[in-house]
């Protein structure tokens, strides 16, 4: 089968671009540890009120000076509603849902993940700038979905 010379060059160019993109993504994943949130911890969503750490949702300071925030995303609210975070804090979020699938997206940050009943999802972020960050559910969860939001106050 005959393949046009220009087409050969075009394919070589296309393949080279794809290889470059994949190498960039692979480098970011391995060298810079830029990976999507992929929580692998299971939890019983019917017993969150008795299951640490979700029996005490909110911000917890660790011995090394970083923070962990435990969130329950449920119809149609986040618990906690507001999180007070000191400027410069590194916060690791742990999110789960007792009911349906929700989204967990802090606008103007890279914290973007799904909250799935039965699983704990996790992502970290360093809050370098003071301000109020809007936390929203960005997966349709029911009739009150558009009112499901919270705030993160960084002071």
């Amino acid at each position, binding site marked *: 089968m005959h393949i046009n010379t220009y087409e050969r060059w075009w394919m070589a160019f296309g393949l080279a671009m794809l290889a470059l993109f994949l190498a960039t993504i692979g480098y970011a994943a391995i060298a810079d540890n830029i990976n999507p*949130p992929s*929580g692998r911890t299971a939890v019983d969503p019917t017993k969150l009120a008795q299951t640490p750490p979700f029996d005490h949702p909110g911000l917890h300071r660790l011995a090394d000076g970083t923070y962990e925030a435990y969130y329950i995303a449920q119809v149609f609210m986040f618990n906690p509603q507001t999180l007070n975070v000191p400027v410069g804090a590194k916060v690791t979020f742990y999110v789960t849902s007792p009911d349906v699938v929700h989204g967990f997206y802090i606008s103007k940050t890279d914290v973007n993940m*799904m909250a799935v009943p039965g699983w704990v999802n996790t992502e970290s972020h360093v809050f370098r700038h003071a301000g109020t960050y809007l936390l929203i559910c960005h997966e349709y969860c029911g009739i009150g979905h558009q009112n499901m939001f919270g705030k993160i106050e960084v002071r």
Partner: protein
Amino acid sequence: MAQAVLSREGSSEARVDQRKLEAENRVVIAHVYTATAAIVVGALFGALQGLSRASAFIAPGWFDYYRILTMHGVLMALVFTTFFITGLSLFVTYRSIPRNDRSVALGWAGWWVMLVGVLMAAVEILAGNATVLYTFYAPLKASPYFYIGAALLIIGTWIVAYDIFANVVWFRKHNPGKAVPLPAFCAAATFLMWWIATLGVVGEMYFLVPWAFGWTGGINVVLSRLLFWYFGHPLVYFWIMGAYICWYNIVPKFYNGYVFSDGLTRLTFIMLLLLSTPVGIHHEFMEPGIAQNWKMLHTITTYGVAIPSFLTAFAIFATFELAARAQGKRGFWQTVRALPWNDPAFCGPAYGMLLFILGGFGGLVNASYSMDTVVHNTIWIVGHFHVTVGGPVALTFVGIAYWLIPRLTGRALWKPEWALWQERLWFAGMLIMSMAMHIAGLLGAPRRTAEVGYLGSAPNEWQGYMIAAAAGGLILFASIIVFATVAIGTLWANEKTEDMHAEFAAPRDGGERVPAMLNSLFRWGVVALAAAALAYAGPLLDILHNPGFLAPGMRTW
């Protein structure tokens, strides 16, 4: 590559008698006009959505925003596209494999089963029993009749697929040593891919239906989402392959062009068959319960499926240039000017190709394991799929309908100048709406919400883009009304003067023979099934190992 070669001359010279032709046409008309009805109603719901998000319209309590959104998504993504592709594929198969002994019973059976399924699902959505959007993510629990309706829509397409395969098999049996005509080959590859992909959603229904009836206690949420996206991404390639069938086989006729390379066209469709399915997890990058290595694997395969689109871009632009050269035109602008910009059948696909350039760029971002974090579930994604399915796919179908309807009815297109303006409106409306959505998405505005105000807490800049998107949406709505007017008007307005014979683009390398490897789909179907199984074996084994919670499901609307 195998050395065995096949000659290409089919029996396309043979004409089917008129009565037979009209019987075939009636099936295609049923499919295509059902698609037209779906796009009109879908567009109405789309316009209301845009207005709601721009805070110019508040959906009443008895028909809330999410019911509107479910109708829009189901009608556009599942009903319009599917019925048009079944109609188009039956048409190119029937016309490129002419035979006087053909039964159209399967074409009708498929249409009826699809229609009954759609009506079942529509009744449940309209009644408010299935406000679960077109992705119906568990544990949102819809009426079981919604899931059964959706499954019937798919099963109806399997009947159409069987009809297409049976015609290809008939051709091979009666034309030993000849290559399957290219249009029928492309249609068969598309439906083979579709059959493999829809195994996922039918598998999901196997769990959802008994659960919705209350016969089983719980559903594995991660498994149901994995099965949905096993189907959900090849669904978009089903749309794209429908458009590519037109770009390769029909559109070149409008500018006296040829198929750039018969063999490479077959190769493109085989690559799409192989690579469309093992990619779905790129929709689930932000999910818990799926390991990072599977997400990375699906990033690589998703980039792989860009290759047949590179081939297509080259082939189509090359045929533009060759057709212009045949008229003695040289250079970029002369080539552009040589194209038939006053033919609505050409302009739809051509504007769609322009929008697809934007869609392709955005798609590379969405498929990226790392960059998707910035855009996942923001309205950027909605902007993206409106310049893919709403651009190259829908505009191609609309433009091809302007060529197809005269071939089906024998009547010349009514108001071709309206048709031209309809496509220009669409291009402008889509550009405005999609750009506003892309920008708002980068600023963090979410998709799938009735409004973006968050009781005054949202950034102010979101609202302006929502208004721009709504304005684009209204232009699109107007455009679709014009399309339906021309399509329906053509059924009565003109006398039956048109030649109903359809000609497909001939290969430029007319004398060259087709390698046997590129003529047989069955073996490639087996490879495609194996590739899909391999890409999903890992995550499925993980779920079997650690099934986790089984959700009882609930109705939150």
